[in-house]
């Protein structure tokens, strides 16, 4: 990815706040409206939380890599881990009418991103590809 920001952190929940800060600043640098930025901040946080919980099964000593790029008003965010391969058939949030703890993260991710897909070319671990088409820049 050209013109990208890359952030590497440990798979510990304390780094989620740092990832959120980078997400927010990257968006504001590129004139993303605040409401959308808020949704993106949540979605990226949820995707990284899922890496810690599911791909790494709570192991906080591993690595998460988050990459950001903006090209022609398409925001691309890539989240890489070296954990257990995702089984796509398990990737499903709960029915929103079935009230119980958990199962909301994927809903938050899919709500804001246009595409949410795992890179099939990735051999080890997972590479989650997220993208969103934005409107024209609201500043400058």
């Amino acid at each position, binding site marked *: 990815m050209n013109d990208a920001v890359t952030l590497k952190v440990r798979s510990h*929940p304390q780094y989620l*706040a740092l990832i*959120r800060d980078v997400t927010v600043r990257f968006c504001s640098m590129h004139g993303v409206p605040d409401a959308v930025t808020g949704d993106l901040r*949540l979605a990226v*946080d949820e995707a990284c*939380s899922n890496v810690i919980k599911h791909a790494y099964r709570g192991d906080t000593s591993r690595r998460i890599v988050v990459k950001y790029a903006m090209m022609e008003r398409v925001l691309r965010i890539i989240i890489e881990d070296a954990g257990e391969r995702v089984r796509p058939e398990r990737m499903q949030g709960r029915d929103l009418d079935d*009230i119980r*703890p958990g199962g909301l993260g994927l809903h*938050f991710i899919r709500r804001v991103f246009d595409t949410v897909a795992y890179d099939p070319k990735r051999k080890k671990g997972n590479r989650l590809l997220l993208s969103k088409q934005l409107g024209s820049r609201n500043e400058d």
Partner: protein
Amino acid sequence: MKIDVGDYKGNTVVSLGGEVDMHTSPVLREKLLVLIREKPRRLIVDFREVSYIDSSGIATFVEGLKHMKTYNGRLQFSEIPQGIMEIFSFSKLDKVFEICGTLDEAVSR
């Protein structure tokens, strides 16, 4: 994240602040479960100073509510900032939790 437990007109109020995420929500969970163990009739959580909440924070409240429902206790939320209210609405949880504008609205219900 900041959690202050206080009293408002004879009701327990949890004043929550800052960022509630996977890192901080376990602390919230522990505090809530200790409070709920006393089986309060009503527990008010004031969201005025909450700047962020993710699904782990929401899950914590869903869990708390389930416990309270076993003895017909009420979990009320007051002063929810707009961005957070949208998350509750989207998750269809605005129908599940008792959402109140202000602390006074909560206690008068």
